[in-house]
């Protein structure tokens, strides 16, 4: 996938879906057209980010204006539990009717026959969503997810702490060295106990970015990149910060999560995703925060990803479930998402309110990253199988094992898992 293409919308996808709709099965019972105001049904909706609850509730309310007798019960679980539960539910044929899906898990569920084919949703304007996202949720030419949002990674900078430390707020194009020096200055000046804070257990906001910034890669052509020296250099970035004492080790962020530490004023820089803007704004109500692009290594890079809504293939109310997917991803729902400030909506031309919610925060950084230097979240058919192996990096971060050995071991185990796909 070309970087620039991630957010480019195209009408070809729309055409393809229209064709698919003609050739696809015309089982009317499973299509939302069979629904009416009187349709009675009960649906469950499962998601993982409780910060987005207001948007979910508002969109369900809008759905209920159209279908007052379809009762939707949302439930939320933390990210890690979410996937454990979803997998167990999939096996037990207990999947929720509608649920969030992400790139790393999509192919597994689609190839396992767990997801309802949404290609027959004729009135979804597929061309309004970024092609890359539509493609991300397409499996063997069938669409199994309607894009919901997209996200990139950037640095949240606490201006107050930078001022106390006598530092200038960094600008676009700042380098790894400048980042490391700033972190050190914050700690040494006593402005905050830590310079940077990232949850190193979350690859997407931490080492995945630096791996690509260093010119390395996570997977390429079914091979792990963790034995590549450049990849290792990307992880070394964090080892250096931990060694400086400017970034808390994973044992610290396990006790108190990195975003929590940042909110408590324990550090000057926080690497985070665009989805964190909402909870951060609830804590920092003024303009003490500004968003800055991730520092540059050999090149600039930021991981881009986007979620979609999917429906269970075995839903007892498939027509209603598909209608709900549509309602959660249509233009109005995306506008709600933007004005609530929860996530950057995927639907074309609905994003503005999201970027304008806090002008002084410089939120455009997230879209600039998406437009010019974003790297798609690395994924394969069974991503979960090898992502699980990455926990062994904690051994390196906590100093239990040398980084190089850990990465070599990780690469070997990942390649085994990739070979089994």
């Amino acid at each position, binding site marked *: 996938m070309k970087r620039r293409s991630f957010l480019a919308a195209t009408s070809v996808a729309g055409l393809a879906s229209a064709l698919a709709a003609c050739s696809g099965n015309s089982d009317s019972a499973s299509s939302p057209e069979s629904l009416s105001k009187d349709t009675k049904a009960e649906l469950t909706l499962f998601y993982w980010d409780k910060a987005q609850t207001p948007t979910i509730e508002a969109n369900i309310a809008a759905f209920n204006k159209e279908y007052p007798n379809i009762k939707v019960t949302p439930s939320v679980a*933390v990210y890690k*539990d979410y996937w454990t539960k979803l997998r*167990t539910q999939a096996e*037990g044929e207990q999947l929720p009717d509608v649920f969030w899906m992400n790139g790393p898990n999509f192919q597994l569920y689609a190839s396992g026959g767990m997801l309802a084919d949404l290609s027959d949703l004729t009135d979804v304007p597929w061309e309004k969503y970024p092609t890359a996202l539509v493609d991300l949720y397409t499996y063997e030419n069938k669409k199994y997810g309607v894009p919901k949002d997209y996200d990139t990674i950037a640095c949240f900078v606490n201006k107050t702490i930078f001022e106390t430390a006598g530092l200038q707020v960094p600008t676009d194009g700042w380098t790894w060295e400048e980042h490391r020096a700033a972190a050190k200055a914050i700690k040494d000046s006593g402005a905050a106990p830590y310079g940077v804070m990232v949850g190193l257990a979350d690859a997407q906001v931490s080492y995945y970015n630096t791996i690509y910034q260093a010119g390395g890669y996570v997977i390429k052509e079914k091979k792990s990149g963790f034995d590549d020296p450049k990849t290792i250099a990307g992880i070394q970035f964090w080892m250096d910060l931990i060694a400086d004492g400017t970034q808390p080790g994973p044992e610290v962020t396990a006790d108190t999560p990195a975003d*929590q530490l940042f909110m408590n004023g324990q550090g000057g820089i926080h690497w985070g995703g665009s989805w964190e803007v909402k909870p951060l704004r609830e804590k920092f109500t003024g303009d003490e925060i500004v968003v800055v692009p991730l520092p540059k290594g050999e090149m600039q890079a930021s991981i881009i990803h986007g979620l979609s809504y999917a429906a269970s293939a075995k839903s007892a109310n498939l027509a209603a479930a598909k209608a709900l997917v549509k309602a959660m991803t249509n233009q109005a729902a995306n506008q709600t998402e933007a004005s609530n400030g929860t996530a950057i909506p995927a639907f074309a031309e609905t994003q503005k309110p999201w970027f304008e919610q806090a002008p002084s925060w410089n939120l455009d950084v997230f879209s600039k990253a998406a437009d010019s230097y974003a790297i798609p979240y690395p994924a394969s058919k069974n991503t979960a199988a090898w992502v699980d192996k990455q926990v062994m990096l904690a051994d390196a971060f906590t100093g239990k094992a040398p980084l190089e050995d850990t990465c070599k071991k990780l690469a070997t185990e990942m390649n085994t898992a990739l070979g089994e796909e």
Partner: protein
Amino acid sequence: MSSAAKSWRQQLRYWPAHLVLILGGIVMLFPFLWQVLMSLSANVEIQAVPPKFIPDSPQWGNYVQVFEKLPFLSQFWTSVLITVVRTGAQLVLCSMAGYAFARMQFRGRGLLFGLILAILMIPGQAYLITQYQIIKSLSLLETPWGVILPGMFSAFGTFLMRQAFMSLPRELEEAAHLDGCNVWQVFWKVILPLVKPSLFAVAITTVLWSWNDLLWPLIVTTREESMPLSVGIATLAGQYTTDWALIMAASVMAMAPIFVLFFTMQRRVIEGLATSGLKG
């Protein structure tokens, strides 16, 4: 010298024992006391350095929040239901089977009893995967019955009840039979009332295990509405990692029923458990 004074002098001589027991007792009690205090504190007070044990003003709102953040009532009823049904079923089934193994003559008795005892020797996880598949094929996942079913049958309870029946004199039954009672009547009206302490021991161990058990309900229930409290608390703690006051309030509420039950019948609980151990 009065006997009261003598007894006090004796306690004085026991001072090292009292010291050890008081210190030990504090260690035992402290987590509970602290949890209750935290459940009434504001979150900042809980994270205060230096520690602050007594809240400035009791935050009853923490308890109200439990009902907002967790389907507490439905989880509570699930816990009650699974506990009551499993305990009732075990009492009836284990005492019946225990009686048969203790008193009745039938072919293969030794073998069957051996098969029951063998279950005790095998770690519980070895059953879980297939039990899960059975519950799934019965379409009972996410239901209280799915949680209940395997736990209705207990090898330990059967063993305990058999021991209790064995210790009764046979003459009782023989006399009752001569009076014209049938086997069921003898069992139900004459024998069962005589083994109340053992029945109580089975009940108390089942109640405790059933209320507090985590692994099996964690596997069978994934939705908040269908979970019992043990899984609910684990989920809540994962969801609201740093909302300590809320977690403590929910924990206090989840444990309270067992403690109320215990304090209303503590003597019998302790005696019951002592029998369960001695007979084991």
